[in-house]
């Protein structure tokens, strides 16, 4: 049986106390939220922090609130609530869809949005739609609070710009312009407890119901050390009239803009081909949604 190594546990009552503990213990402490990732890594002996700081009892970290023309999501909100909450399903359908395919129902009842971001796994489900929607994250430390675009947050597998002593507290997403649509598709061998073979999040904004594409984001996941933009494919879309042919063109470009590895889940060549398929499919679905709004 997997046993956890010994550690001491702290449960701060507010964010200031949590920051104080983390700045005191520095790298010997780790934050625990839902625990579905960190406890697995500790049981496997990959990490062995001396202290765990539980943030589950801190008020305000699990709320979803409207915030000057946008929405703010507390980092400790469990994944299942991203699927359940009407406000998120209506305003951020792409995020709800990604949440609904993360892990299993049992994992979604514990795992948190903040945890899925800070763990920085290359195949994590929530970062691609969040990046496509231009999300930002708030990082609190003992001395300051800073806000950073999620685009600049990830450095590589398991690596982010978070410094020792900092806690991710909120995810902020500005309201998207009218005539915006998006979609997230995760390619999987099975429907649950699965890590993506390839996943794509696309988002487009049109000038009007029948207008040209004003803005486009295509984020590829599981094909690079971190979720990446298909930059040239995005450029190929902007200013153009949305057609299936154009989307196919962008999809072809996107499949050359990633550097996947061969592993047990799929070969690199297969992954590149699937990037093309998923980019086209997500763009077509995004267009349908954009026309409706």
């Amino acid at each position: 049986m997997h046993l956890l190594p010994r550690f001491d546990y702290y449960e701060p009552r507010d964010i200031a106390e949590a920051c104080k503990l983390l700045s005191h213990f520095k790298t010997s402490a780790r934050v625990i939220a839902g625990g579905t990732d960190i406890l697995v890594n500790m049981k496997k002996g990959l990490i062995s922090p001396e202290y765990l700081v539980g943030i589950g009892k801190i008020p305000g970290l699990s709320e979803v609130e409207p915030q000057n023309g946008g929405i703010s999501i507390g980092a400790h909100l469990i994944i299942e609530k991203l699927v359940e909450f009407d406000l998120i399903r209506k305003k951020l359908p792409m995020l709800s869809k990604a949440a609904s395919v993360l892990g299993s129902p049992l994992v979604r009842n514990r795992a948190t949005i903040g945890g899925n971001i800070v763990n920085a796994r290359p195949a994590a489900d929530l970062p691609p739609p969040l990046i496509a929607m231009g999300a930002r994250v708030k990082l609190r430390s003992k001395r300051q609070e800073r806000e950073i675009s999620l685009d600049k947050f990830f450095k590589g597998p398991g690596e982010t710009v978070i410094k020792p002593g900092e806690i991710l507290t909120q995810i902020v997403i500005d309201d998207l312009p009218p005539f915006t649509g998006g979609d997230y598709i995760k390619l999987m061998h099975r429907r649950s407890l699965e890590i993506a073979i390839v996943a794509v999040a696309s988002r487009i904004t049109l000038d009007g119901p029948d207008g040209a594409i004003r803005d486009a984001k295509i984020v590829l996941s599981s094909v690079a050390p971190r979720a990446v933009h298909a930059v040239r494919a995005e450029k190929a879309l902007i200013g153009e009239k949305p057609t299936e042919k154009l989307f196919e063109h962008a999809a072809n470009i996107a499949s050359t803009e990633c550097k996947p590895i061969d592993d047990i889940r799929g070969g690199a060549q297969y992954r590149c081909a699937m990037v093309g398929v998923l980019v086209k499919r997500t763009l077509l679905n995004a267009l349908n949604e954009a026309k409706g709004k």
Partner: protein
Amino acid sequence: MKRLITLVVNKKACEIAVEPNRTLAQVLREDLGLLGTKVGCGIGDCGACTVVLDGRPVNSCLVLAVQVNGSEITTIEGVADGQDLHPVQQAFIEHGAIQCGFCTSGMILSAKTLLEKNSDPAEPEIRAALSGNLCRCTGYQKIVEAVHLAAEMMKK
């Protein structure tokens, strides 16, 4: 250092001193003697350790006991009403949805939670709700049918 925590397990309040590195599954099995909760993989893949924590089914092998101080927990031992089995338990027995039995506690708790939210689930909804619970005897068909049967029984 041990921490004193309070849990309400199967409607009974209990106070226990636990080391921080003990999981909820360990505390339920070893401190409270509730051996109906099984531990399979220990890393959240198999769902054998499913318990209902504040109304939601979770993998108790990936929950620290100290994290859930003050919570309400239902294990398989808390599902029957005295000698009367819950319709989901009855349906599993009647329909032959139990083979080796190792996944059964978790399956029943996930199914029971589903039926409390959705009294008439379609097959894909049942399969989705049970998708975190693995049955290595691969008896899924009978299990899904038993959940349908339980839904019928609960309507009467």
